[in-house]
């Protein structure tokens, strides 16, 4: 199923591209149909899995414990195989990917006039790459998808982006590629030093527990860490994000914020920490500090922006800091919080970027100083924006609150001072989110703009995302049930992480 899903998306993209010759409106329908087919394929495969499999504790080294698993030889010279596996975490990420993929297509429904076929193709190919990232269990294969998904994304920004697209696309590509090279080096080093008798392997299951100790382990781990933190993005590697987000077309921003950033968090959770438990333990205080700095620094910068998209971009930096904190706290609460944050932030930020795109499409500006009082003309847009702004600031009852609360609760057990510092982020989030609302939708009505309200198509996407966030906020248990066995399988790999951190950070109580 997993290889088929990726192939389906690749072929669907190609069909969408060529369908432009028949009718310029056809590509978006083809792209939409492809994503829906992908969802159906995924759901039908999931329906075939016996339900008790969802509750057994996953053992990453045991092929049987994956919900779905497949392996084919590819490059035996280096022990590389097409090894795919899906567990609850991957499933959740796939649902997010395909769901937000559909949202991205809707958000750019009639925005693209130049080469719509190629646009939709790149969009769907990006999804294919991301799906590959979430399913690969072979590190070489993972790296391949990790790099390849950037090319369609690069083209999306470089061709259909806004005024400064060349610079932004290049910055995005170089940041991720250079950090990717470091990761490739780490992957190679890890595989080579783990090889016995020249039998090299890149399989996740076989590499677990084979990390070198001491400085070598730390340096190898850093290769992974940098690559994933750039993508996350974590402070201080976040500088590509505001540019890429601002210049990308709406669908590109939705994909970037909603999905691509999550691949970084997924990589940390799936690969970086479990593969290098010892080095990660030592590094955790640094990573957590970076997370806290990211939360506060991102929030301050978000508040200083006048560009709607830039504001949302910096708020992403702030929110993803919570993910970093949750991952390195490495206990059930915090990890569940981090995963919840990945999903909730994906949805809420995607919605905000869709809002930004809709505003830009209507007003031809992203400058908030030139907006104001828009609620008057577009009450539906205003209401949606209000909903996602308060979701982003962490209003109880919505997914983001659950996520951030869990991260803070989990973190407090490990590093109380860190938790205290991170909690500032909740206040600052309220400041910039409400500030954003005030600048755009509230205030004195400005009659210069005649703005059309959301239509049925845009509203349907918004309603789906609103329901998703409400569901995540009011009844998050299904998500926890889905990921619990995965986390239970991963946690023993890094058994005594929390106590070590507690010992390192003064004032900690384990």
């Amino acid at each position, binding site marked *: 199923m997993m290889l088929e899903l990726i192939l389906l998306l690749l072929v669907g993209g190609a069909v969408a591209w060529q369908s432009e010759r028949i009718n310029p409106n056809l590509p978006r329908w083809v792209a939409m149909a492809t994503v829906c087919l992908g969802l159906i394929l995924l759901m039908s495969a999931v329906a075939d899995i016996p339900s008790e499999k969802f509750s057994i504790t996953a053992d990453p080294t045991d092929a049987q414990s994956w919900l779905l698993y497949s392996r084919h030889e590819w*490059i035996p010279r280096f022990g590389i195989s097409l090894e795919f596996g899906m567990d609850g975490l991957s499933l959740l990420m796939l649902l997010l990917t395909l769901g937000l993929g559909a949202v991205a297509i809707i958000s750019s429904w009639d925005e693209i006039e130049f080469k719509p076929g190629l646009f939709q193709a790149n969009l769907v190919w990006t999804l294919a790459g991301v799906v590959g990232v979430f399913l690969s269990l072979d590190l070489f294969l993972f790296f391949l998808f990790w790099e*390849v998904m950037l090319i369609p994304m690069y083209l999306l920004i470089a061709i259909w982006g806004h005024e400064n697209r060349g610079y932004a696309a290049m910055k995005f590509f170089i940041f991720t590629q250079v950090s990717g090279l470091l990761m490739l*080096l780490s992957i190679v080093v890890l595989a080579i030093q783990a090889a016995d008798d020249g039998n090299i392997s890149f399989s996740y299951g076989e590499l677990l527990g084979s990390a070198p100790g001491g400085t070598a382990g730390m340096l190898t781990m850093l290769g992974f860490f940098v690559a994933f933190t750039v993508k996350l993005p974590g402070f201080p590697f976040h500088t590509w994000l505001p540019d890429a987000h601002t210049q990308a077309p709406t669908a590109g921003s939705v994909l970037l914020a909603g999905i691509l950033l999550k691949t970084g968090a997924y990589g940390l959770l799936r690969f970086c920490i479990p593969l290098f438990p010892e080095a990660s333990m030592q590094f955790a205080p640094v990573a957590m500090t970076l997370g806290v700095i990211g939360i506060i620094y991102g929030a301050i910068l978000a508040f200083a922006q006048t560009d709607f998209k830039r504001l949302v971009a910096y708020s992403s930096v702030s929110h993803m800091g919570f993910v970093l904190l949750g991952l390195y706290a490495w206990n059930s609460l915090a990890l569940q919080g981090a995963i919840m944050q990945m999903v909730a932030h994906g949805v809420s930020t995607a919605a905000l970027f869709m809002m930004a795109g809709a505003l830009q499409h209507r007003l031809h500006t992203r400058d908030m100083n030139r907006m104001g009082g828009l609620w008057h003309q577009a009450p539906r847009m205003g209401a949606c924006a209000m909903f996602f702004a308060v979701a982003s600031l962490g209003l109880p009852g919505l997914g983001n609150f659950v996520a951030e609360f869990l991260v803070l609760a989990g973190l407090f057990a490990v590093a109380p001072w860190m938790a205290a510092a991170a909690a500032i982020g909740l206040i600052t989030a309220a400041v910039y989110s409400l500030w954003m609302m005030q600048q755009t939708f509230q205030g004195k009505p400005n009659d210069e703009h005649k703005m059309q309200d959301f239509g049925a198509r845009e509203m349907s996407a918004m309603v789906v995302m609103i329901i998703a966030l409400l569901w995540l906020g009011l009844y998050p248990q299904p998500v926890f049930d889905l990921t619990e066995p995965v986390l239970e399988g991963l946690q023993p790999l890094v058994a005594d992480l929390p106590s070590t951190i507690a010992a390192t950070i003064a004032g900690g109580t384990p």
Partner: protein
Amino acid sequence: MTANEFVAIAPLLVMALGATLVMLQIAFLRSVRLTGIVAIVSLLLASASCYYAMTVTPLQVGALLHADAYGLLFCTLFTLAGAVTCGLSLDYIQHHGDEPEEYFLLLILATLGACILAYAVHLASLLLGLELLSVSLYALIAYPNRSALPLEAATKYLVLSGAASATLLFGFALLYAATGTLSFSELGVELGRSDMGTALLMAGGAMILTGLAFKLSVVPFHLWTPDVYDGAPAPVSGFLASVGKAAVFVVLLRLFLDADLFRYEMLVKLTGLMAILSMLAGNLLALLQTNVKRMLAYSSIAHVGYLLIVLMICLDLGNRGIALEAAVFYLIAYTATTLAAFGLLTLINESQVEREQVQLQHVSGLFWRQPLLAGLMLVAMLSLAGIPLTAGFIGKFYLFSAAASGGNWALLAALIAGSAIGIYYYLRVVFYMTRGADEHRHTVDLAPNWSGKVLSCLLIASILLLGIMPQSLMAYLGSIL
């Protein structure tokens, strides 16, 4: 000579025959198309005969040549590359010169020289092959165009390359004076004897290294490269950058292995230093170019730098196997990619009559004017940059693995830094190609000929094939090295 020996050097014989045939044909009937086809057919026959020659390997042919799987693999590669260059030149040359038939003769001779280098196990055959290659190239560079730039390029290459050959020859003489032999393997035996005078050897070794480094355009002997590549016709630049360099590297590798020059750690470290300098300088200078040909010239300097790290890795006997595999795979990937990149430049050139330089703005909007060419160019650039699913990535991955298992961290650091810089300028070409269709006004478009399109499609297909399914080549390399 026995019949088997003739079989073993069949590719060389076929090419010599082809050259004679082309010469005769030109004497009686001048027709560019016919000459081109005869040249392509004889080169393809030569590459097919490599397969035939494989049946009798390994076989020493006289004192000068040695036919083995390694040499024949490259012989196949060079003849195919020669054929591709002929194909790409067919239309180009009609636009740019009068009575250009001898161009194909020179191309066959250059390819023959490269193949002799692949066979060479003796300093005499090394020099023979190298000179045949270089002398043909002098003429090829200046041949098709009467404007000043190619003449300048050819003169530059003639003078500097001549000086390099002289240095190389002097180095051989010193080596001969010290050891009394010119054969690679006997050199190895002689050098192993402890009573060797070192002053002569060191001078000789330094001169040989200088000469070969010049031909490879390794920093600090690289200054000629951008001017020559820029001035030469695009297909010739492609041939020079791919076959011209690969052939020299092939023989360099064989010299180091057969004569076991790895015993001179100082010499190998020197190549490591040159590798690092080439990677950094090549990539940094490529950053500054706005002319795509000059950019590719500097990037070729960097790629030779990547390749040269193999020699350092070979110092450790345990990793020699993977290092050699890496080198051979990288050479094949690099040859295909470079040919494709220059070939596409040829096609772009063709569609802009009389314009020889390709500035970045000339490819602006290519995606919308010539989607096929631009798509192929995209793959070529990604392969040069080492992005997955292309041959260039697998080659780089090989080098990474080899260097990491040898623990050569300084080289790895330079490799990463170089690749990182490289991404920028390769991507810049892609970015220019994707610019809006309205941002270019100074281009005249002609539809490129179908043969050029087919050839570049084939090249790109092979790049992708090597990138996606590299296993069969890897297994073959593992079996012959």
